[in-house]
């Protein structure tokens, strides 16, 4: 993902502007092109904010009048930052635009800092700027990217902005928004599979935990942005919540394999408490969670505790009758009896 972003940004270095347009508004100025290449970090962990952003912050400080340097910095914050960084970015550019009244570049950059967070307001402000400065190419590029995005798609406007930008900056690269979302991590599922294949427990547990961390970071790439619908955000969160149960199950199994029965019991007890909380909040995960717990107790030959889970499931079924789940419970009971 990081290399893709880098590719798009680097592509802006190698093109030529149209007559009458300040070259710096289409492309990075020649004197900073090599610096940009060095400032874009391809770090293995995209969540390492400072590693990705600090070089571009420095670049911007060295070239405060270069709009592309600012844009690259803004993009790095957007692509690697969490809510606090994003808020800080907007505040920073609000202050800069106040400190530089009537400077087109700063007004534009403030509006641009709102993209992805309050995109409708960004559109309004950028259009306002273009009404007075129709030849300001970066604004057309930003609007084109917004209108090309799934959340704010407007084919006609996108075409119009693209035409205008191409007239002003022939050959210059367009931007794609938002940056591609990382796929959900496969690590938790892989950890489960490796556990079944008798892999090394410590490594498997670390893998599962890393999977959760990766997905938590992925969620932070979704939650603060208006590129995504409320429903998608909610769904992503539920999927992650579900994954936590897989990770905890892996943890219990790894602890058992390593002979840490106390630790396994501790994790199970915490899982049980969490399951009770799910019941209180009528969480849709509740049934699956109880099933998971029953299986874990059964694996640990803790029949009494497994039976308690069955009781909880029975209680749930009495409140929410479901023949399919009734069968599932029956199968679990039979399976345990046969052990």
């Amino acid at each position, binding site marked *: 993902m990081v290399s893709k972003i880098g590719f798009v940004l680097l592509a802006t270095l190698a093109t030529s502007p149209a007559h009458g347009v300040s070259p710096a508004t289409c492309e990075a100025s020649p004197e900073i092109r090599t610096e940009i290449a060095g400032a874009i970090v391809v770090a293995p962990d995209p*969540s*390492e*904010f400072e590693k990705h952003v600090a070089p571009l912050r420095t670049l911007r400080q060295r070239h405060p009048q270069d709009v592309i340097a600012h844009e690259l910095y803004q993009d790095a914050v957007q692509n690697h*930052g*969490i*809510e*606090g*960084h994003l*808020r*800080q970015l907007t505040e920073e550019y609000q202050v800069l635009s106040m400190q530089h009244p009537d400077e087109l570049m700063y007004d534009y950059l403030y509006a641009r800092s709102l993209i992805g967070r309050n995109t409708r307001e960004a559109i309004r402000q950028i259009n306002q700027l273009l009404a007075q400065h129709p030849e300001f190419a970066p604004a057309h590029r930003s609007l084109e990217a917004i209108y090309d995005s799934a959340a704010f798609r407007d084919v006609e406007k996108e075409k119009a902005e693209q035409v205008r930008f191409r007239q002003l900056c022939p050959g210059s690269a367009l931007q794609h928004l938002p940056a591609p979302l990382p796929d959900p991590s496969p690590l938790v599922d892989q950890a489960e599979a490796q556990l079944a294949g008798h892999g090394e427990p410590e490594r498997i547990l670390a893998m599962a*935990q890393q999977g*959760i*961390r990766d997905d*938590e*970071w992925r*969620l*932070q790439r979704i*939650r*603060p942005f208006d590129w995504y619908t409320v429903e998608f955000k909610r769904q992503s*969160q539920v999927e*992650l*919540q*579900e994954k*936590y*149960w897989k990770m905890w199950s892996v943890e219990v199994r790894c602890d058992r394999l390593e002979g840490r029965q106390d630790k396994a019991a501790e994790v199970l007890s915490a899982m049980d*408490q*969490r*399951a009770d*909380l*799910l019941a*209180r*909040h009528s*969480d849709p*995960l509740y049934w699956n*969670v109880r099933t998971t717990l029953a299986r874990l107790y059964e694996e640990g030959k803790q029949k009494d505790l497994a039976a308690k889970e069955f009781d909880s499931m029975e209680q749930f079924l009495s409140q929410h009758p479901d023949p399919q789940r009734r069968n599932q419970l029956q199968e679990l009971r039979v399976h345990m009896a046969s052990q």
Partner: protein
Amino acid sequence: MKQRHLLAVVGLALTVVVSAGSLEAQRDPGPRGGDPGVGGFFPGLSPDEQSFFNAAIQDFMEVDSVSGSVSGEPGTGLGPTFNGNSCAQCHAHPSVGGSSPATNPQVALANLDGARNTVPSFITTDGPVREARFIRNSNGTLDGGVHGLYTIAGRTDAEGCSLSQPTFAQQLAAGNVIFRIPTPVFGLGLVEATPDSTLLTNLAADRRVKSQLGINGTFNMSGNDGTITRFGWKAQNKSLMVFAGEAYNVEQGVSNEAFINERSAVAGCIYNGSPEDATRMLSSAGSSMGTEAEMSSDLVNFAAFMRLTAPPTPVSMSASARNGANLFTSVGCALCHTSTLTTGMAKSAAMSNATYHPYSDFAIHHMGSRLSDGINQGAAGPDQFRTAPLWGLGQRLFFLHDGRTADLVQAIQAHSSNGSEANNVTRRFNSLSRSQMQDVLNFLRSL
């Protein structure tokens, strides 16, 4: 002169020996077991109020994670710094809404969900839940604020945050840390509904006797509207809404509509927009229509829960406890620990003109050097504390603002030190016979 001094010292030593001997014989009967008898709604609430209470208590028990992504921790906004992850985690004993439980949940909280916190030395498994305040800043100016025990750094849902815990060991060594334990919230709607005039009249009552015993007392006041503030250890909070809002932000790190700014707002540790808790535009089912509790913020629901809870119910008194109740009054304890107050007109009809028994005047008093914590809050100075309400005392596990003791006898004795308004009353208590003292203790444990 020297001889007189010597005599005074000998006399003092004798007094100490005598009172220590007599105190030794008295035993705190310990926390009352059995049915908590609290935690439900105030009797006589309307069906709508009862529903609100039942929904609100669920919010009070909700567990928070950083962004609500950890299953079983659906609340949003924990941290960057925090002391707890749920109201009910600390307000737990003898039931939801109470005070510190027997097993301190803050120990397990330190490393929950991958957090990398070290448990400070003053947090122990069998000790009270505590928050820590620093008396002074490093430059010598007054601090007084709460410093969160823990940070979210290392939690699976706080990738990238590297905020460090405060340097508690260093601050402890410098004598710069004081503690507070959770105050129970049962029956607080009655306190909120008590008119200022009632409290003023009550404080002015028995002025002559109080004066003879060195008891003054004053109220902590709101600088905004000039009315009496009455919640918190120093009566620093005006209303249950403010009380809840402050606690939500300070104890759990959840910014809200009353306390809108995130604390310890390091950009790399901020995962949610502010306020993290706000009035809901949509119910959890996605509808723009819902009950009051469904659409209200957590903050409103917390306040509603506290407002609508029933006060603790005392058990029926033994003969000893009945005698203790009389002695409690005759010794002078009741001059500040006012047994009975009456509410004014309240929003809830059931709570209007209701008589209740808080055993507090809700005034602040100088409690002397032994209890002084060096913290100023509003008009309350370093050694001034609100008269702690004694209702529910029978089941309480830890006493005094910092939970320094679990022994009622020690808590009583701590009322006496240089500058305390309670010195004379404590002396009178100490002059009671052993069985009389025991009666007082039995009375207190019946509350």
